[in-house]
């Protein structure tokens, strides 16, 4: 079967992870889109590291407020009951374990739970921003990524080669092929997305993966 990159399936699946009342920080880029797919009956509280609890959707065109942005500087709104705070309080919330989930993008993620996403030495060096604090402090760290690099290699590795953002902090990886838990120095495939099969994924991923006994084949829609 042919592989077609599918970012939407990643954010749709992650949107099903959370329970009402949980505090979630969504990274800039792909993770931000998770907010668009949350189930109607689930209400989570979005934390934004630039100093807001209760991050709301983008405003209507023309009603942007230059003092109200997300951590990527895009205009946003604040939900009723939300609040603002300074950066020390924001990272106190993050490091202090008051954020349940952080969802981050990936350059490389390995089977020990290491994550690299802030630096390709000599080339692209965006900086870590809040990602190191988020991966250290959040209760559950979810890495969100297309399974394959543009060159065809898997982003899931035995060992990261780039400078680490997080050492042994990743709990779960969601790609456009499936859901993987990170435990005991291995990936555990717990969900495989149709039309792919566990065998197909194992053949093309250069990492140690155990197919969980209760691994489900699911259709994400």
């Amino acid at each position, binding site marked *: 079967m042919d592989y077609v990159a599918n970012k939407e399936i990643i954010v749709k699946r992650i949107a099903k992870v959370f329970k009402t009342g949980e505090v979630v920080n969504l990274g800039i880029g792909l993770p931000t889109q998770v907010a668009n797919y949350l189930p109607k009956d689930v209400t989570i509280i979005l934390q934004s590291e630039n100093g807001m609890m209760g991050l709301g959707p983008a405003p209507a065109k023309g009603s942007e407020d230059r*003092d109200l942005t997300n951590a990527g500087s895009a205009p946003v709104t604040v939900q009723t009951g939300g609040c*603002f705070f*300074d950066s020390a309080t924001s990272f106190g919330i993050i490091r202090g374990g008051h954020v349940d989930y952080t969802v981050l993008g990936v350059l490389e993620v390995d089977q020990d739970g290491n994550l690299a996403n802030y630096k390709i030495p000599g080339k692209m060096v965006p900086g870590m921003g809040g990602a190191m604090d988020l991966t250290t*402090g959040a209760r559950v760290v979810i890495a969100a990524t297309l399974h394959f690099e543009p060159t065809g290699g898997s982003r899931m590795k035995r060992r990261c080669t780039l400078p680490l*953002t997080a*050492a042994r902090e990743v709990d779960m990886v969601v790609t456009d092929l499936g859901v993987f838990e990170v435990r005991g120095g291995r990936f555990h495939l717990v969900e495989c997305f149709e039309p792919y099969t566990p065998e197909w994924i194992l053949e093309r991923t250069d990492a140690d993966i155990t197919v969980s006994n209760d691994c489900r084949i699911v259709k994400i829609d």
Partner: protein
Amino acid sequence: MIAKPIISAAEAAGKIKEGDTLMVGGFLACGSPHTIIHALKDLGTKNLTLVCNDTAGHDFKSGRVTGVGYLVQTKQFKKMIVSHIGLNQETQRQMNSGETVVDLVPQGTLAERIRAAGTGLGGFLTPTGIGTEVEAGKQVIVVEDRPFLLELPLHGDVAIIKAKKADKAGNLVYNGTAQNFNPLMATAASLVIAEVEEIVEIGEIDPNTVHTPSIFVDFLVKSERLEW
């Protein structure tokens, strides 16, 4: 209460001297003191060390520059201590060519280092950065079997910050996510200049709503430029 001098942006820029460590409030240009930034650009003071969350924006394709990115463009910094430079291609160019030193600090650590400087602490222990390049050269201290990095306070010679409103005493109120690093920097520099959109009489701000107490602020500047 004693009223603080209200000065022009040009006068404010003139208080920043060559070689100073300059703290600039704002997060990707949101909540930055844009009027003072542009006055400093016009004055052209060089060899500054920047302390800021990021270096805002500079996109080579569109040519769009925002916030403190204007001072990067004019090469007024010899060093930048920031958490993120991903939206500023000129910062990345200067770093990769070796023209400017860029010290990348995790955002929470940067905030807390500034807070530590302003609140009389000798440093703090954070788990952030353990097992990464951030650990290099730092003391690791184990507390109850968990390793932490000793991070040191970060002082500024001058802080230029931005608030929504001040009274003439210098009590400040921020707005929305424009708060970010501003209240921390207000505590951590020898000289603090607050750019504000509105200046009201002493007594007109409810003491319950003041974010930054007046004693931290030395000078006030009225905003003339709000665009990033």
